[in-house]
């Protein structure tokens, strides 16, 4: 029998309204890895993440999570199975406290039972959130908001974490801190991560493996270390080419 990956997409087509966004996308994500989705704006990266989390349903093809077909499941069910997402723009609940945001992250029955323990673990990773736990989420700084968005996603005790635009609106120093934290979480807990990130150099630094998406199609893939050296990537994304 074929070994099952943590996540597998098979020839997924996605339409939004009448526009075709993804064309026969197939990819695999192995347990414990960080996988980056690279590509220019409007390549379909965010759509791909939303398809995995169930917010968008594919018009063709299948999505498997730990061998279970999830592409027809409702979003809340996919969360229960162990997929959690940090959406683009963070999408915190601004008029609720930091602690309430975290509580909502632990909404599923399984996560709810271990809420206190998970919160302690999350506070160890992001101590500043503990200090601010009574503050309204909308009053946090950008970096703190991103930390809260990640912490909230971790509260469901996911097996797979999807992160859309980690660096959105953050200063280089904070991006460095948060990205190091994420790599550390991955190394220490074995949490599998799929990330979409504008900053290609940063993505390749963090990731084990990457897929390149252009106009809704997968046009390249490979080990992150190898892609860093590849001429195609250097020219197109890293701004290191001769042209």
């Amino acid at each position: 029998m074929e070994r099952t990956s943590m996540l597998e997409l098979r020839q997924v087509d996605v339409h939004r309204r009448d526009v075709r966004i993804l064309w026969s996308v197939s990819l695999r994500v192995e347990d414990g890895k960080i996988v980056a989705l690279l590509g220019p704006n409007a390549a379909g990266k965010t759509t791909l993440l939303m398809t995995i989390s169930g917010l968008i349903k594919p018009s063709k093809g299948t999505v498997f999570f730990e061998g279970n077909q999830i592409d027809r499941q409702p979003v809340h069910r996919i969360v229960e199975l162990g997929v959690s997402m940090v959406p683009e723009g963070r999408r915190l609940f601004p008029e609720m406290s930091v602690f309430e945001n975290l509580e909502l992250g632990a909404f599923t029955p399984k996560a709810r039972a271990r809420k206190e323990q998970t919160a302690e673990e999350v506070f160890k990773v992001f101590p500043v959130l503990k200090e601010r736990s009574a503050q309204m989420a909308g009053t946090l700084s950008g970096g703190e908001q991103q930390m809260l968005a990640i912490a909230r996603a971790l509260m469901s005790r996911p097996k797979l974490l999807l992160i859309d635009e980690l660096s959105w609106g953050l200063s280089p120093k904070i991006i460095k801190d948060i990205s190091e934290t994420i790599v550390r979480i991955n190394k220490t807990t074995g949490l599998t991560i799929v990330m979409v990130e504008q900053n290609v150099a940063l993505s390749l630094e963090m990731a084990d493996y990457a897929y390149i998406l252009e106009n809704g199609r997968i046009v390249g893939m490979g080990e992150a270390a190898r892609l860093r050296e590849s001429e195609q990537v250097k020219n197109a994304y890293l701004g290191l080419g001769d042209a």
Partner: protein
Amino acid sequence: MAQIIAYGIITGAFYGLAAIGLSLVFGVMRHLNIAHGSLLMVGGFTAYWAFNLLHLDPFLSIPLVMAILFLLGAALYKGLFSHLDKLPEGQKIDNSMLVGFGLIWIMDNLATMLWTSDVRAITPSYTGKVWHVFPGVRLPLVGLAIVALAVLVIFSLHFLLTRTYFGKAVRATAQDREAANLMGINVERTYLMFFALSAALAGIAGVVSAVNYSVYPTVGFEWLLKAIIVLVLAGVGRIGRVFGAGLLLGLAEGISVYFVGPAYREVVGLVMFILVLLRRST
């Protein structure tokens, strides 16, 4: 004057009860359910029949009325309003009003067919009994019960929305539906339960209206008008403000009756309504 204020507070507590369900659903789900008054009417009739057939005290019949209205609300949401949830906000409000308008027609006429258009009231033994607090101020016992009920509803709702997982799911969904969904919240079920709860709240107001005033098939529309005025005065969102606006309307009506005369009772609320809308639009 103290008497007028006392009556104003009682009337205001009732207006708050009549408006709270309408306001919560509008704030969270963006459905302007103008059939809310007709749900109130159904609640009133349910309590009326419970009193006359089962000899159940109206205030004790509240749990029964709430349960029936909860189921009715769930069915109406599932069958009608849930289909509007995919629409953008503005269209959703417009369409929910159209659906509500149709519902008023159906429910009011059904009530007329079933129970005739007679005006009825629930008259338990304590109707008309008053408490002489001090000379010149008489408080009807029913009125005191209404105020107590309103306070109980305020605190229960506050507890529900801030302390329970269901309440937190409701607030999260109101702030960002998609993000709430990503937390593992079943948004559709949350909406269903919340709409049903709003109908149950209409039921409470219905019981109160049948004891303190009267109930007949088209009574819902009158209370709907008051509830809409309260909704506009209070703005969207806070439970306390809905009851505050209810009191304001109740007091303003009472005072105008005293100084201007009962003929202008209905005008006061509408004038306030227009003034608020004029100020908002600028």
